[in-house]
């Protein structure tokens, strides 16, 4: 298994859609074959279309608000000693998280395909909120599938979705979290694929959804690359790009421009959700050695039992609370280009406390997992090392959880 140079990672799959010969693919019911084929053809056309690219860039700039800032966390760095800690503040994007890139592109594709309805899944509620925003912006009718448990714990985002005119469909099956929301959304699409476009909220699902999402979030690393050159005049010698990984859309977006670099120069570190310290449950298939399985139309490392039943997961962060992970991250793991680890709920909370104490930054619980790793490794690293954390979400949505766990928000 080998990575190719000068080819975007999202395009490094075989004709059946597998990365590294075994991750990804399209394990879908027959009914979805045609809509997925149509979508694939359309997307491949659109991404080569200069007018479409112009449109995308226009909305990224004027609607999403590109570029998001790249800042040094001076206080945190001097408190920890060691490496410099920087943040790419993606949470400045319209809506407060990276999910807006994928949502905007899907809404544009939906329009281009002449469909009036758009549906999507959501865990933390960001994918749903952003899709509802984009739907409103582009005049589409929107339905969001969300686990009943997540609806309760991510109320601020639900309020936003409703305000944008989206219908939230609560999902009561299984563990009532993201995994069930994705299943239910796919079922809905099976029944309504003739007039409805589906947006998968992360770089997961059948091959084409991994590609569209990765193509959208890649904006983050395009910005970062030029910001790095601008700041340091040339690419620094040692960089660590630290990102949380649930499905893996923000991590791919953060890394895509840097994958071709030598890993000694630019190390890619993915941080999964380790769950509560004393719980056996987690949402960390990559770093806790789950087996390969098929979930939601793609083969990836999946938290499951010997029989292939998908395990329940547990994490304080709804956005990372997912038993599978993007096939492209499985590929990056097996080719050893990226390193994956996890942070527990407690470590993420502590990281949140520390970051907010020292900096004017309010990272949600998802990037707090990434900060936990940065805080762990920075003191041991040299001053020349540039640790960059993708602060991909804003903690506003977590205020109830933070209040309950830390006593204040």
């Amino acid at each position, binding site marked *: 298994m080998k990575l190719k140079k000068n080819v975007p990672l999202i395009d490094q799959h075989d004709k*059946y859609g597998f990365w590294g010969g075994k991750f990804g*693919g*399209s*394990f*879908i*019911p*027959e*009914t*979805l*074959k*045609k*809509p997925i084929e149509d979508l694939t053809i359309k997307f491949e056309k659109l991404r080569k279309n200069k007018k479409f690219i112009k449109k995308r860039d226009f909305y990224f700039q004027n609607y999403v608000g590109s570029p998001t800032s790249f800042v040094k966390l001076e206080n945190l760095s001097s408190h920890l000693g060691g490496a410099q800690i920087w943040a790419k503040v993606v949470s400045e994007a319209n809506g407060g998280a990276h999910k807006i890139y994928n949502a905007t592109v899907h809404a544009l594709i939906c329009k281009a395909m002449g469909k009036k309805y758009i549906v999507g899944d959501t865990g933390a509620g960001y994918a749903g909120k952003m899709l509802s925003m984009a739907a409103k912006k582009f005049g589409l009718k929107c339905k969001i599938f969300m686990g009943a448990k997540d609806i309760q714990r991510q109320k601020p985002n639900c309020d936003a979705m409703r305000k944008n005119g989206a219908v939230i469909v609560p999902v009561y*099956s*299984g563990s009532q979290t993201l*995994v069930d929301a994705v*299943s239910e959304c*796919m*079922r809905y699409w*099976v*029944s*309504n*694929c*003739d007039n409805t476009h589906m947006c998968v909220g992360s770089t997961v699902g059948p091959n084409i959804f991994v590609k569209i999402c990765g193509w959208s979030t890649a904006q983050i690393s395009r910005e970062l690359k030029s910001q790095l050159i601008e700041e340091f005049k040339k690419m620094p010698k040692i960089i660590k790009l630290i990102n949380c990984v649930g499905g893996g859309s923000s991590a791919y977006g953060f890394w895509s421009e840097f994958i071709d670099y030598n890993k000694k120069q630019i190390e890619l570190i993915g941080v999964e959700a380790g769950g509560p310290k004393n719980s056996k449950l987690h949402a960390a298939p990559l770093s806790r050695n789950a*087996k*390969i*399985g*098929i*979930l*939601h*139309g793609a*083969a990836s490392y*999946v938290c*499951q039992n*010997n*029989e*292939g*039943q*998908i395990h329940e997961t547990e994490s304080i962060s709804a956005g990372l609370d997912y038993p599978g992970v993007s096939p492209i991250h499985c590929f990056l793991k097996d080719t050893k280009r990226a390193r994956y680890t996890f942070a527990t709920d407690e470590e993420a909370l502590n990281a949140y406390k520390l970051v907010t104490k020292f900096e004017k930054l309010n990272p949600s619980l998802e990037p707090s997992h990434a900060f936990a790793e940065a805080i762990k490794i920075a003191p041991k690293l040299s001053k020349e090392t540039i640790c960059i954390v993708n602060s991909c979400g804003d903690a506003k949505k977590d205020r109830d959880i933070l209040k309950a766990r830390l006593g204040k928000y």
Partner: protein
Amino acid sequence: MNNSLIHQTFKITKSENRPALLTYTVAGDNTKKKSLEILKSISKYADICELGFPHNTPIADGGQIQTSAYRAIKNGIKINDVFLIAAKFKKLKKDKPIILMGYYNMIYQYNENKFIKKCQKSKVDGLIVVDLPFPENKTFAKKCKKKNINFIQLISPTTSKTRLKQIIKNSHDMIYYISMLSTTGGKLKVSPKKILEEYSKIKKQNLSKNVVIGFGITEKTIKSLKKADGLVVGSAICKEITNSIKKRQNTVTNVTNVVKRLKNKIK
């Protein structure tokens, strides 16, 4: 595979001028023992029995079958129990075809070759894998054929014409036509006339293939689709199991009565 039990069964139902009745129940719903009893009892009226091996993330199933699957998993069904139920059933009813149906991850975790071998050993006649479409299923289907197991291809209203031809060419004795854009158990939202028109298009490609129609078939709708080679009823049966449990009534009797009534409507 013209000597397969599945093919023979269609020969008989055709000579009787009626469609084959195919039932779908979930193995282990609501217990291992009960599901075998149900299977034995309904096979008096059903021509072919589909037995689901339940998965907890079923992306193409509606509420009724999901409920049955969760119930079976909760009551401890394991894949080897599914084979055991199939084998026990076949011991008693060796002329009744049994088709296992489920999602690919279960087969993948068990190991494809081992799974097919186990099917053969348990005298399973056919396999339906919901999320392993053509052409990705070509190798697997070939392996099945080698062991005399029918791999059943699915066709849906969205299947394109060229694809349709390829799928039929690569199919074995039976093809499953999904009546409409829906998960299992949806309300029949397409007219029977339209469904039969699409069905004829498939038949025309190769008359020797047995084509069954499934999704949305209930006591109310079954008669209108009687022209097909076979009709599959799943969710309506699973629903009856759920209702019987709720009312604390005998699931075996109640489900058998449903199947009996279904059969009477297409005789």
